[in-house]
C-alpha cells in the first residue's frame, strides 16, 4: 500500500492509460504483473527460436514472428534485418525478442507487451503508438522516435533525430545521447529523459508530461517552461535509468526539468491572437 501511495505521489497514476496490458503490467499491486490475459499466444519465455531475416520479405518476417509465437516460442532471436522497414509491427503479446542488426522506418509500431532489444540502429518513426512493454536500442535512432507512444519504456542508448516523442501520450522515453529539434512537440502525457543535449524548440506546445535533460538545451519551445525537480522524481529517474544500465551525467537531481506552462491552448478563454500577445 505504501508503494501505491508513493506511486500516486510521484504522479505515476494521474495518467489515463489505454494500452490493453498497461494497467496489468504496471499495477503497483504486482500480483498479475507478468500475466498477459487478453487472447495472446501462450508462449514459454524459455522456449527459444532463431531465424535469419536477410533474404526474407517484410511481410514474411512479420508472419514468421507470429508463427513462432503461435508455436509457443517466448524468446525469438532475429538476425540480419538489414534495415528493412515496418518490421515487428503490432506484436500484442508477451515476448522476448532480440534483434541482431538494424531496423528501417516504422519498426516496432503499435506493440503492446513485448520486451525487445535491438543491437543496431533504428530508422524514422520507431515504436510509433507503442502501448506497453520495453524496447532498448543499443545504437542510434532516427527522427520521430516514439511518436505518440502511450506506455512502456522506450530506450535509445545513442543519439536520436528530431521530433522525439512528438504527440507522446504516456510511457517513458529515455535517450542516452542527444535529441534533435522539436522533441516533445505537443506532448500530452508521460516522461522523456534525455541525458545529452536537446535541440531547438524543446517541448514546443506541450500540453502536459515532463521532459528531463542532462545536457544543454538549445532553446525551449513555445509554452515549455522549467519545472522544479523533487527528490522523489530524482529517485524514480535513477531507478528507471538503472534498469537499462544508464546514469544521468551529474546525477538525476541535476537534470533540467521542463514542463508545460499551460498558457497556450485551451487553458484560458483568450482568443488565439490574444494568446500570442500574452506569450
Amino acid at each position: 500500500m505504501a508503494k501505491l501511495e508513493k506511486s500516486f505521489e510521484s504522479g505515476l497514476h494521474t495518467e489515463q492509460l489505454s494500452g490493453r496490458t498497461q494497467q496489468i503490467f504496471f499495477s503497483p499491486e504486482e500480483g498479475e504483473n507478468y500475466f498477459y490475459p487478453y487472447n495472446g499466444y501462450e508462449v514459454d519465455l524459455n522456449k527459444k527460436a532463431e531465424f535469419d531475416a536477410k533474404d526474407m520479405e517484410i511481410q514474411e518476417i512479420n508472419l514468421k514472428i507470429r508463427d513462432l509465437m503461435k508455436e509457443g516460442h517466448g524468446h525469438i532471436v532475429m538476425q540480419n534485418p538489414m534495415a528493412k522497414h515496418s518490421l515487428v509491427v503490432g506484436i500484442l503479446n508477451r515476448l522476448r525478442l532480440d534483434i541482431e542488426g538494424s531496423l528501417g522506418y516504422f519498426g516496432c509500431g503499435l506493440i503492446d507487451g513485448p520486451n525487445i532489444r535491438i543491437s543496431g540502429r533504428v530508422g524514422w518513426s520507431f515504436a510509433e503508438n507503442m502501448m506497453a512493454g520495453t524496447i532498448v536500442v543499443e545504437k542510434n535512432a532516427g527522427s520521430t522516435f516514439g511518436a505518440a507512444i502511450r506506455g512502456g519504456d522506450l530506450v535509445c542508448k545513442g543519439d536520436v533525430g528530431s521530433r522525439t516523442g512528438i504527440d507522446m501520450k504516456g510511457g517513458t522515453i529515455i535517450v542516452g545521447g542527444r535529441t534533435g529539434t522539436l522533441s516533445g512537440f505537443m506532448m500530452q502525457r508521460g516522461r522523456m529523459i534525455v541525458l545529452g543535449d536537446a535541440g531547438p524548440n524543446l517541448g514546443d506546445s506541450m500540453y502536459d508530461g515532463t521532459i528531463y535533460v542532462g545536457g544543454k538545451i538549445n532553446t525551449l519551445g513555445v509554452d515549455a517552461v522549467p519545472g522544479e525537480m523533487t527528490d522523489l522524481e530524482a529517485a524514480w529517474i535513477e531507478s528507471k535509468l538503472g534498469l537499462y544500465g544508464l546514469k544521468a551525467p551529474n546525477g538525476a537531481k541535476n537534470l533540467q526539468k521542463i514542463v508545460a506552462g499551460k498558457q497556450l491552448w485551451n487553458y484560458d478563454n483568450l482568443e488565439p491572437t490574444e494568446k500570442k500577445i500574452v506569450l
Partner: protein
Amino acid sequence: MCGIAGIIRRGDPGNIGSEMTSMLRSLKHRGPDSTGFAMYGVPEKNHYVMRFKVAEQEDLSKGFDIHQQIKDRRALVNSRLDEMGVEVKNEAEATEYAFRYTFRFDGDMRRTADYLEDIEGVEIMSLGKGLELIKDLGDADVVSDQYRLGNFSGSHAIGHTRMATESDVDIRSAHPYWAYPFNDVAVVHNGQLTNYWNWRRTLVHRGHRFMSNCDSELIAVYLADKMDRGYELEDAMHDSLEELDGVFTYVVATSDRLGMAKDYMAAKPMVLYESEDFVALASEEVAIRSIFPHEIDTFDPYEGEVRVWQS
C-alpha cells in the same frame, strides 16, 4: 517524396556505377518516375566529358518524323562543335537521343554550351572534367542498364529516385541537376523550396539560365553562383540554410567533394555512414545496407547541419 543518395571513396576509385545503382534500387519505393546519376569518373588530362540529349524519351512515340529530327539535331551539334573549335575525341551513343562526347577545348565554354543549347531539343546534361550526369525515365535498373553504368569507375557519385510532385515526369525535371555552365557541380534534393521564384529571379538577373521549373535546379545554380563568387562549398551551403526557405535535405557534388545539408526543420530524412575510406549517405539506411551487408554504425545528421567530404 524522392530518394537521394551519395557515396565518396576517400582512396582509390572503384565501381561507383554498380554501388549507386544498388543504392537507388533500394530507394525505388520513394519515387518510381525517373532515376538519375551524377558520376565522377577518373578525369583524363585536358579532356572534357559532355553528356547531352537531343530529344525527350516520350518524343520518340509522339514526335512527327522524330528519328530523322534526332539525326539532324545531332549533326547540327557536331557542326557547331567544329565551328567553335572543339576537338572531339570520342562520340558514344547512350540511347537514340542521348550521347556522350569527350573532347579537348581551350575556348569559351559558356558560349559553346549556349550555342549548342540554341538547337531545338538539345540540352546539355553535364559538362566537366569528371562529371557525367545520366538521367532518364524508369527505375535504377532500367536507367543503369540503358546507359551501361554497371562498371562505371570513379571516386564519387550522387543519385536520385524521383516522385514528381511539382513538375512534369520527363528527363528535364529529373534529378540530378548540373549547375549550368559550371564544370562538375551537381545536386540532388528531397524537399520543397518555398522562395524558389524570388531566388530564380535574382539568379536570372545575374545571368544564369534555368532549364526546368524544378526547385532542385535552383540549389545547384545557387551554390555554383556562390562558388563562382569566391565562396568555399561549405560556406555556400551554410548560407543556403539561411537564404533558402522550405523543408529540404540536399546532396551536392563537385569535382573532388561531396556535401550534404539539412534545413532547420529537419523534416526530410538522411542517414550517414562514415569510415576512413568510404562515406555513404541516403534517405534511408536500407540503401546503405545494400552495399554494406555487414554490421555498420549509421547516424542521422541534425537540423541545420552541413557536412563536406573530400575524395
